[in-house]
């Protein structure tokens, strides 16, 4: 069932898109999905990664999120390692939206999808 594979290097974060409205989300430490990358849980611990992976599968099956996958995070900057993922985290570098991605984040704050589950 799972398409989730972790074969990255260094700290990992788990990302996906929310199903209902489509935003980029990251799994946070309380196992909810959060639209702000700064709230993403970063870990190198294989046990935690395994739990995250299970959470990704489960929440995909429960129709909260679509297409979860792990991304590499730079250990020093704490930003996604690949620049594709930096764009996903930061929003488009050119944005004519009214409101823009950044304005929406400012206005509404980070959005949370799912229910808190402690340590799974």
């Amino acid at each position, binding site marked *: 069932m799972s398409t989730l594979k972790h074969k990255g290097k260094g700290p990992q974060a788990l990302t996906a898109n929310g199903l209902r409205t489509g935003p*980029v989300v990251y799994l946070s430490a309380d196992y909810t999905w959060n639209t702000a990358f700064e709230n993403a849980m970063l870990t190198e611990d294989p046990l935690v990664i395994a739990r995250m992976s299970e959470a990704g599968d489960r929440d995909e099956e429960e129709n909260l999120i679509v297409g979860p996958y792990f991304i590499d995070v730079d250990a020093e900057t704490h930003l996604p390692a690949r620049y594709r993922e930096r764009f996903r985290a930061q929003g488009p570098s050119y944005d004519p*939206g*009214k409101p823009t991605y950044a304005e929406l984040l400012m206005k509404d704050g980070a959005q949370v999808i799912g229910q808190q589950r402690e340590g799974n």
Partner: protein
Amino acid sequence: MYRYDEFDHTFVRARSQQFKRQVERRLDGSLSEEQFRPLRLMNGLYLQLHAYMLRVAIPYGTFSGKQMRQLAMIADKYDRGYGHFTTRQNIQYNWPDLVDVPAILEDLADVEMHAIQTSGNCIRNTTSDPWAGAAIDEIEDPRPIAELIRQWSSLHPEFTYLPRKFKIAITGASNDRAAIRAHDIGLQIVQNDAGENGLQVYVGGGLGRTPIIGNVLREFISRHELLPYLEAIMRVYNRYGRRDNKYKARIKILVQETGLEKFRDEVEAEYAQLEPLDIAVPQEELNRIADYFSAPDYDDVSSSDEGYDKAVILHSDFAGWVRSNLSEHKISGYTIVNISLKPLKGAPGDISADQMRVVADLAQEYSFDEIRATHEQNLVLANVKKSDVYALYQKLVVAELATGNIGLISDIICCPGMDYCALATARSIPVGQAISERFSDPERQRVIGEMKIKISGCINACGHHHIGHIGILGLEKAGVETYQVKLGGDATSTAEVGKVTGKGFSFDELIDAIERMIDLYLRERDTGERFLDTYRRIGMEPFKGVLYGTD
């Protein structure tokens, strides 16, 4: 303009109801993403880099003021106040919520629009000359045939699961403004020795990772026989097209692997079998469709207009815009107005909801309530009286739609790239913006003359970089954006695929590199030569010299 018949109306409504239930079933989990994905794609809904993206069909790029107003309403109500015109004459929204899409489709259906066949392995929107019906070099308006193809291909059960997507373009003019030879099938209206109009059929063109210019499959086919002939091509493709490898599945690869001669024999054999089935279109039906596109009620006006002439003399900004943005009309006293969607700091093809409403008003007031979207990501009002042009221009100025750069270096085709597209390997919008910025002086642009720069954010080539005079392809190399440059591409009747100059450039190097090539061209050009002409005359080497310092 074409009006839906009852079948179209019923069908589009039924489809949007169907999709509404599919979304409900997806949300409650009765459909998995795997099951839902093909269904949403059949309705133009993608999941992109940041969000869902909905692509709305604009058949052959022609639509009305009322439809444009509805597109604006949708942009405001469900999206973020703007839309993006694509290189296939469609429009897309970058931020819709999945839960809103059924309502959007309902609102589209209210104005005879939909998002069907804007995605998936089917026959996509047939694209056409944006100056159709108005161009001075036109044999015949191509849109009735484009409409015929739309009716034939829409949900054709045989062609719903093709090996890969399939794109058709048609032009009725001698100058190709629809890039027909870059399409799976390209159609050109031609006249035979008996003076009858029919179609020349090109096959096997396409961009993507294997760019190929289409070749003539049939010199002439009458319009009655066109659909059976197309059906024969599709059947041969459907039977032999490769389904084992996505990258080899387009018809261009089949034609290449089979050889044009043999492919032609296959099509002719299939066609011979088809004829008894008599699916040729009767003349009455052709007439019925053609009636919808009959010429508008042109006023009898004189070829020159005093007010217009005066405004050109008095207002140099207007004169500059006139020079680049107006095109000659077949009726004297009328002109074709090209509205640039390439402002200095914008993204090619983007338009705000407010601007959409302005264009809708202008179309209604000055151009028989008709708008065209172009594959170069601009808009056209095709039937404007010269005496109205200055008033129209002033309204464009207020709406910030009066950029005077059609066909010039800042009139760039550019895909969304890494800023929006999930498949991208690099950004393309900021590259286009930086080039426009570097060459922002209108006088300098005019001196450079006709120039087609086309930018894609990955090998899929939605930004047509293979057929740009200068083509730019964004790639990722060791975690940074690099840009490969191609020269000598051409999308017109002298179509050609450009050649790679050599190793790529970083973002910062790229803009200087382009400027060095432009400077070289200005030094080397003979009188009347465009960049492309000079390149063809002097070849790649001098350009490599200024790019890599090898001269």
